[in-house]
């Protein structure tokens, strides 16, 4: 792994929350390249949220604690830059959409970030209009947040982060409170942003059946460390994966069962259409 080439570089990261006895992150080294779509997963308590907070400076600036190692995002060392500086490169979208939207209309929320930066009005207008259109929220821009569905709220939250024009989008379990249709739509939007804007994405997600097909890389964390890291086809079929308490998609399980039964497919499928295509080819 070439050092210092990634848009996110993490070296020897260890973090213990103030007042806690056990470290939440216990030695993380990794590098994420520009434009990668990374899924971060693992059982509850493995440190995924803590890791997200380290990417935009909430750790160490908002959450006091014992911080060791280095995190460099878009060339900025998170220890040496304020959250508001890092926020222009890393956009963090949280799990609960309700608490990230504090204004009385969607448009006002999207404008919130650029307003904080003291940008001139026409620049704010340009960014807001672009972010609303990029997330499909243009028609809903005058609505109040409580009038929106969960999925619409999350899209509004993404728009409000996009208005900061970040290079990296970090999303911490954004589909948690959404129904399956809403979740699928949201992940599809995130994938579009990754492909069309070249935005680097770090998506913390449990629903691997919905998300893994869009990703370039899956990182499984366990107890504050990285347990597995690689392309989804490799990680999800790794024998250690099931022991880590993550939900392996049924199509992957079926792929393995078929292989055991004598039907070996040339590729690991990550979605039902893929599996059907592969079986049809072999048949």
């Amino acid at each position, binding site marked *: 792994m070439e050092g210092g080439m990634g848009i996110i570089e993490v070296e020897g990261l260890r973090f213990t929350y103030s007042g806690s006895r056990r470290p939440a992150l216990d030695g993380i080294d990794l590098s994420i390249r520009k434009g990668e779509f990374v899924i971060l997963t*693992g*059982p*509850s*308590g493995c440190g995924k949220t803590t890791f997200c907070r380290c990417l935009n400076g909430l750790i160490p600036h908002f959450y006091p604690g014992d911080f060791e190692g280095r995190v460099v995002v878009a060339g900025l060392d998170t220890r040496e830059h304020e959250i508001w500086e890092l926020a222009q490169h890393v956009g963090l979208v949280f*799990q609960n959409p309700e608490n990230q939207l504090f204004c009385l209309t969607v448009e006002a929320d999207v404008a919130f970030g650029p307003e904080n930066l003291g940008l001139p009005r026409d620049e704010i207008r340009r960014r807001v209009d672009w972010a609303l259109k990029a997330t499909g929220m243009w028609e809903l821009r005058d609505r109040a947040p409580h009038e929106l*569905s*969960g999925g619409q709220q999350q899209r509004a939250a993404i728009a409000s982060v996009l208005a900061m024009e970040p290079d990296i989008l970090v999303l911490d*379990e954004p589909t*948690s*409170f959404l*129904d*399956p*249709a*809403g979740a*699928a739509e949201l992940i599809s939007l995130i994938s579009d942003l990754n492909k069309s804007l070249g935005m680097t994405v770090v998506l913390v997600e*449990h629903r691997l*059946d*919905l998300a893994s097909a869009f990703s370039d890389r899956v990182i499984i964390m366990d107890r504050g460390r990285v347990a597995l890291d690689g392309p989804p086809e490799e990680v999800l079929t790794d024998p250690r994966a099931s022991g880590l*308490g*993550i*939900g392996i*998609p*049924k*199509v992957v*399980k*079926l792929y393995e*069962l*078929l292989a*055991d*039964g*004598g*039907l070996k497919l040339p590729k690991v499928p990550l*979605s*039902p*259409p893929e*599996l*059907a*295509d592969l*079986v*049809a080819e*072999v*048949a």
Partner: protein
Amino acid sequence: MPIIVEGVWYAYPNGVEALRGVDLTISDGDFVVIMGPNGAGKTTLVKTFNGLIRPTRGRVLVDGVDTREATVAELARKVGLVFQNPDHQLFCATVEEEIAFALRNFGFPEEEIARRVDWALRAFGLEEYRDVPPLVLSGGEKKRVALASILVWDPKYLVLDEPTLGQDYAQKEKLRKMVEGLLGERSVVIVTHDIEFVVDFRPRPKVVLMAEGKVLAQGKAEELLTDQELLSRASLVRPQVPEVLYRLREKGLDVRTDVLDPEEARDVIISSVVGR
């Protein structure tokens, strides 16, 4: 004696019709899963079981008692409803008190309260948290406390509203095992849209599909959850296993599509591929 929902309609005070003519029966020992999109009326429906919502038309009978003639507290003795978000109900200074709360409300004698609380703490692996405030526990632990605080009074009908929200895979598996252990002695109703969670239950539940305040269909999981048309009317994402089989059939392979189990699907696929 069952829970009988007869021609139930319900409109909220602001005029929104949440239930538009629902008929349903939940018999002793039944395991029922109610599925559908947000706004289908699933939560509204289960709230009629314990009287939190009283139908504007039609009636709900719980063990022969019309819910309009009983108080919520009386109905709750029989119907234990576990809400989605434990943060909307946990408030006590210790887990022990939290679990005992309902028992005190129902007027159980103190020795019985102590006995039942001990049982609940053990059954849900919460003994080490007996004197801990529930509000400082993790999300998964809070859900266990919430569930324990309902099961402690041993309701005949247990209703879980979206129990898998915000849970990771391991927690869902634990929840599934726990529910499977509760079956038989009582009726369990789960409201959810997590289809892969439902599909893994053994024994398989009876499935009720709802949309727009009505019941679209009721029946066996294998039949309803593999029916593409029904699933799309209920705005549900199709489970991966039958989806694969459907696409294979479209491509000309001779396969059954009413299969939910990966092992069964493997056998079906291999036998059809070998057969060619």
